[in-house]
């Protein structure tokens, strides 16, 4: 098993964990953590892809850019979570189902 296989497997496992968490968890902060785990899997995949194609610099710079962009999403998501806790009195995503139809 080469390091690349390890990286690819790791990326898939992280994606799977993240996706499961996204579907199964009900706490909004945990949902955002699950999202973060998915992104970490993709970061790994980008670095591995750069290494496979011989473009190590490109892959790594993309990974760094992704981390920046993803942090902003996490910050916005957590800011929304704070407001949700304030207005709904709970972080349960099941409560967020007043809009229908």
């Amino acid at each position, binding site marked *: 098993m080469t390091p690349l296989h390890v990286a690819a497997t790791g990326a898939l496992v992280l994606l799977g964990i993240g996706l499961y968490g996204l579907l199964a968890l009900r706490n909004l902060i945990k949902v955002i953590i699950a999202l973060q785990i998915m992104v970490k899997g993709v970061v790994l995949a980008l670095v591995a892809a750069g290494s496979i*194609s011989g473009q190590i610099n*490109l892959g790594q710079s993309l990974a760094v850019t992704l981390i920046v962009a993803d942090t902003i999403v996490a910050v*916005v*998501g957590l800011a*929304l979570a704070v407001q949700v806790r304030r207005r709904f009195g709970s972080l349960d995503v099941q409560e*967020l189902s007043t*809009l229908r139809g």
Partner: protein
Amino acid sequence: MNPAVPVSLIIVPLAASPLPYLIGRLPRRIFLTPRWIALAALAVVWVVFALMMRDYVAPVTLQFEAVAFQVDGLSLLLAALALALGTLAVIYSGPYMAGQTGEEKYYALLLVLTGAMIGLACAADLFNLWVWFEAMVICTYLLVAFYRQRPTSLEAGVKYLVQSAVGSVLVVLGIALVLAQTGTLDLAAIRQATGDATLMPVAGALFLIGFGVKLAIVPLHTWLPDAYAESPSGISAVLSGVVTKAGLVALLRVAAALAGITLSWGVLLMAFGTLNILVGNLLALRQTQIKRLLAYSSMSQIGYMLLGLGIGIYTGESSGIQGGLFHALNHGLMKGLAFFAVGAVLYALGRLSGGEHTLGIGDLRGTARRYPLIGLALTLALLSLGGVPPLAGFMSKWQIFAAGVGTGTGWIDALVIFAALNSVLSLAYYLPVINMLFQDSSSTAGQTARCLPVAIVLPVVLLAVAMLVVGLWPGALMWLTQPATSALMAAFGGL
């Protein structure tokens, strides 16, 4: 063309975006309000855009290390739409957003949103495209959840954020697969890449899902009605009018890059288009809130665009592609107009903040009597969305249908007939709204309504006039759709 021109088209709105925020945070109010700063910045962008249109002859490519930009017809089309609706939304939001908490952030975000969409339009490599896409999407998260004291708005924001963020993750995964397979991210180079392509269909599917969230293709549409209905009306207009088109352009660029090696995009787009038309119409039929109704109608209109583009890509004829792009532009005008007009009624009823902020169809009763201009504009927008001749929406739908029938293929004919029947079906939810507008008696809410300021009426009138002109003289937008069509044809390799 001087490379400074396209670069400043992207840089100016981004560089100017902190100014409205900083001015708005000043302890003492000065003459310059955040809105005027934003308008001034957009005026500069308009000048740059005019310079670029004047000098535009052929696509221009700019390369900064690994980052590539390309200004072609498709970029100009999206940039024009983004600028037009962005400017109108800034004008419109003056009275609409006056006194809201965080007003200064609103204009700053709107500027970044406009700049990011222009950047997305000009991106010529895959990662660059994603960065602009993400920048655009992050701005819209904040704008959708702008009324943060309102629980429903937060709910819409959370739903939108989670779905879009997953979509973005899948897009980056697709980018990683493309990078691993081809070793390049330049869209033109990916097209020419040869060799092993086993992962490319997977990447194509990931892109379709990822950008499809923004396009609201059918199983991924659930965020759309909430986000459109809960955001400020100016933002609903921009979201529906341009942001979905930005998703469409991103998808088309990527699809073109993968056209040679993966899936049959034409058939896929036609299939999703037809599904969107049907589901959007059926869901719109049972809406009682006008903004949600318009949101679902956006879904079905996106279906028409996809159908036109799919027909064009499948057959290699330019007429279908041109019809799809023409419909995208028209939809920007029509839906912008509809959301602005509905927002004007919300403003008149004083339902901008506080508990009651929705507008049921019943609340529109007799609006045309009290506000003839708004009533007329909304009527025109709805009839045009329903495809009534001789309005703009009819012209572009007609072009799509004509392109479909022109192929002479049986099943495409069937799709076109289905889409045309759906266009009639859509009148079933537009006409009751129009009927309500022209009722004799006013709703109780309508009797206490206040006067509308010029800044709210002006964008509505401008868009209504533009829509009428396009309807009576469909060639008026040819200068945008023609280069965009040839750019897309060239991107798909002449097919």
